């Protein structure tokens, strides 16, 4: 049982309860205490923000299979340093997480690391092959609440229909789709437009995503199932979701920090760190995504943390794999580029980074409310501390889309079930 901790004078922002006030907060026995009092550790949080620990709906921890790029342990440490107390790890490992045994293994690795809670995501189809449903029920028994073939879409509409229908048998289970039409996206290295043309690179149009978003929403309507859409990159996709929600469909959506901050023009230097899938699109798309996040059409911010080896990313642009790491920069990116300029309130930002994803994931212990008796999964951060995004990172990989930039927003403390896993900006494990 961790020692008691008193957070003194923090600005407590808790979207789940609508709180935004300066207060003292005592944590004792791993839970929030009824009222503040003396503690074994007293932390001065003057000028700092205290919020429910962040929750990432979408990260690739690469273990098993590519432990050179990341492990559950290094990924969790990176997450904790980024202020996350819970992370959903995607199923496209090697072997694929399409069975209970692998789910158990990932859970065990996370437990041993002890720096962050991991919610393993199960594959929808066997081996991510897109042809046969995986044993979803068995994985639900192992604790899975989110299923995704992320990396690709479920190619067969009938199969998606069956999956969405099948999981209605299980409480709180969500199918998360990576929306990409393989034929339209084929060969595309980045967004198709003036920039890709200038760079002489094949592009994929936003319709490659929108076509599948439209399909998936129609199937969600047909089945009444719970659908979550991963990493939206197009304003058009957001608009489709807006209409679907107005209609009452049970759909949620996420967007990455890099899609909120960057755009296709940032690729003019052929910088592979910004080569992502879905790609960074136009300024118009970025505007649309920000508006959708602001009005709740897009529920959550998720990192799509995708570590890759240095030599793979240092290759020629069209040879380099897609992806950017993001656990350590997500909060700062959102604070610097959306909250600071006034496009997003701090409360909504924390809602998008913590409360909403916790709800979608069914991670009841996370996301707030910060109330007596609730597990103490918290983050304390300095929203104005400026830092440069450069190695060394806690992640084993260095492929950050924000490499070389300066961001404002530094995590000071991260607390997992009452234990300070990050204190004064340093990982304790």
């Amino acid at each position: 049982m961790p020692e008691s901790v008193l957070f003194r004078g923090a600005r407590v922002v808790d979207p789940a309860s609508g709180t935004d006030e300066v207060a003292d907060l005592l944590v004792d026995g791993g839970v929030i205490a009824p009222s503040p009092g003396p503690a074994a550790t007293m932390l001065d949080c003057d000028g700092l923000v205290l919020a429910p620990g962040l929750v990432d709906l979408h990260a690739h921890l690469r273990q098993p299979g590519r432990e050179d790029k990341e492990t559950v342990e290094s990924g969790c440490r990176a997450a904790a340093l980024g202020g996350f107390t819970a992370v959903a790890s995607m199923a496209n490992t090697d072997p694929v997480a399409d069975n209970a045994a692998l789910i158990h293994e990932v859970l065990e690795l996370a437990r041993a690391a002890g720096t962050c809670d991991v919610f393993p995501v199960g594959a929808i189809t066997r081996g991510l092959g897109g042809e046969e449903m995986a044993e979803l029920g068995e994985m639900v028994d192992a604790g899975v609440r989110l299923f995704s073939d992320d990396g690709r879409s479920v190619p067969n509409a009938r199969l998606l229909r069956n999956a969405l229908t099948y999981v209605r048998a299980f409480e709180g289970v969500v199918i998360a789709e990576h929306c990409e039409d393989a034929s339209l996206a084929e060969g595309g290295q980045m967004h198709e437009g003036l920039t890709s043309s200038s760079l002489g690179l094949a592009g994929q149009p936003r319709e490659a995503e929108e076509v599948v978003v439209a399909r998936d929403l129609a199937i969600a309507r047909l089945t009444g199932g719970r659908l979550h859409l991963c990493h939206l990159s197009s304003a058009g996709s957001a608009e489709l979701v807006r209409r679907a929600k107005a209609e009452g469909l049970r759909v949620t959506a996420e967007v990455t920090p890099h899609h909120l901050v960057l755009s296709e023009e940032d690729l003019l230097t052929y910088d592979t760190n910004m080569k992502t899938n879905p790609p960074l699109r136009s300024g118009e798309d970025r505007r649309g995504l920000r508006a959708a996040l602001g009005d709740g059409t897009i529920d959550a911010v998720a990192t799509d943390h995708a570590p890759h080896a240095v030599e793979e990313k240092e290759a020629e642009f069209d040879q380099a794999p897609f992806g950017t790491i993001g656990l350590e920069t997500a909060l700062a990116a959102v604070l610097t580029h959306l909250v600071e300029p006034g496009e997003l309130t701090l409360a909504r930002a924390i809602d998008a980074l913590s409360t909403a994803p916790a709800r979608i994931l069914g991670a009841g212990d996370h996301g707030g409310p910060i109330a007596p008796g609730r597990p103490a999964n918290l983050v304390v951060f300095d929203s104005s501390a400026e830092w440069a995004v450069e190695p060394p990172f806690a992640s084993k990989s260095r492929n950050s889309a924000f490499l070389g930039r300066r961001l404002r927003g530094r995590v000071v403390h991260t607390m997992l079930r009452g234990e300070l896993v990050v204190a004064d900006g340093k990982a304790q494990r």
Partner: protein
Amino acid sequence: MNRHLLSIHDLSAEEVVRILDTAESFREVGTRVIKKVPALRGRTVVNLFYENSTRTRISFELAAKRLSADVINFSTGGSSVSKGESLKDTALTLQAMGADAIVIRHSSSGAPLTLTRWVRGSVLNAGDGTHEHPTQALLDLYTMRDRLGRLEGLRVAIVGDVLHSRVARSLSFALVKMGAEVTLVGPPTLIPPDAAAWGVQVSHDIGAVLPKLDVCYMLRVQRERQRQQYFPSVREYARLFGLSRERAGLLPDRALVMHPGPMNRGVEIDSDVADLPRAAIEEQVTNGIAVRMSLLFILLGGSGSQEDEQEAGAVRLPEEVPAGA
């Protein structure tokens, strides 16, 4: 001038003129008995050709040798990453060898720019993926200026698979920069959707365009594009867009026919037409050496240690020019 030549956008119109004017002097050197000058004696020029291209490589090799530079040929056939050394490791080796200039041809767009991060010498783009081929564009400008006396106001059509052609890109940008009027001709599937932003016109009717041209520039069309379904058949392509003998008759008398090579005789251009006197195809090859000598001389002939030396930076977007401006 910039230390590297990666794209036509790296050059101002004045710099283009200087390159062409200097090439005149190098063409004169090519007429001497001793076709060599000591200008780049002691320098090392490396030809780093990841794509097979005997013609371009030899052109660069001759250019460097006639400037008395030492030449190293490093050619690999096929994909760079799956076989053997990474581009980075090759670059570091060349850097250690003290290469003053590296001429690189690569199948990945952007590879030359990536190379500049690892080497101190000058990098010359001899063709990267579907991005650019600036030296080809410059030698084509040279040929046009030489045969027709000017560049400004020239009416040029670029015909064929513009979408996949790095030559078409560089040439379009270069011609627009020098005040020529460019029309891209081909099936809609092979014209880049954003071509209007390049400052060019687009047409799908070659017959309508030919009578008003000073230069008809034919691009190679790969049969693979038919397999990728950009057009239904080679036969239909040739019928609609090929430069047959009859079609060539529509051209004004003084108009030039050009082709970057190698030609698909019978697809985009008939054999008869390629062998006509108005076809400047062989001159393009001769002029290539003079233009490449000019480039090597200008890039390596200065120490580059001035405040206007730039690090190779971002690709610049073509300035937005309304079509027909």
